[in-house]
């Protein structure tokens, strides 16, 4: 079975542009998480999906950030009007369920660079 995959691996964009980052979770995993990891820091939580719905989006920094998971599998993180401060590695993780005993499996991340 394949692990969590994320595309693209690297994305370079210009300030003000719109970007989409994709996450393919492990098949059958109902819970999906997005984290952001700035250079030299630990990952920070952005949003968590249980099925198709966002169960907790308290980590999204502002309304330029939005994420969807329309069919309960693939998720897309969308960033509007990108700023240089958005440059980071965006990590996705999935787990079999949302209970605390379920391990989160991480993807390799997308490195976003905003020029």
């Amino acid at each position, binding site marked *: 079975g394949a692990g969590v995959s994320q595309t693209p691996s690297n994305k370079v964009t210009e300030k003000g542009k719109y970007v989409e980052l994709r996450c393919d979770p492990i098949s059958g995993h109902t*819970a999906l*998480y997005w*984290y952001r990891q700035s250079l*030299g*820091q*630990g*990952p*920070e*939580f952005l949003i*968590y999906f249980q099925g198709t719905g966002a*169960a*907790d989006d308290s*980590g999204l920094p502002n309304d330029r950030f939005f994420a969807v998971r329309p069919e309960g599998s693939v998720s897309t993180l969308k960033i509007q009007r990108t700023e240089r401060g958005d440059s980071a*590695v965006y*990590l996705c*993780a999935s*787990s079999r369920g*949302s*209970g*605390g*005993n*379920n*391990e*989160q499996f*991480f*993807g*390799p*991340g997308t*490195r976003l660079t905003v020029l």
Partner: protein
Amino acid sequence: AQTVTQSQPEMSVQEAETVTLSCTYDTSESDYYLFWYKQPPSRQMILVIRQEAYKQQNATENRFSVNFQKAAKSFSLKISDSQLGDAAMYFCAYRRINAGNMLTFGGGTRLMVKP
């Protein structure tokens, strides 16, 4: 809010020797999970070891073991017989049991292994 602190930005160990990475956390919860993750240059987070706070016995996984001091809110990772492949960033993380499933990470410790 929960916080996780790793006070050692970098650590170095000789191959085959033992090294201990420190982690402290702050929480008002009585039950929770604690984790150590390894992040190699490939960026993919790999779970090393997990501890349930209600268990008094320290978790062990082969060469990896923890020293969990609940009253002191301390959770250190000991790596025995260090190998070159252990070189990576190590992150300590906290997760609540029931309310919210996101991980709260520390800032990380870079471990270097000298041959």
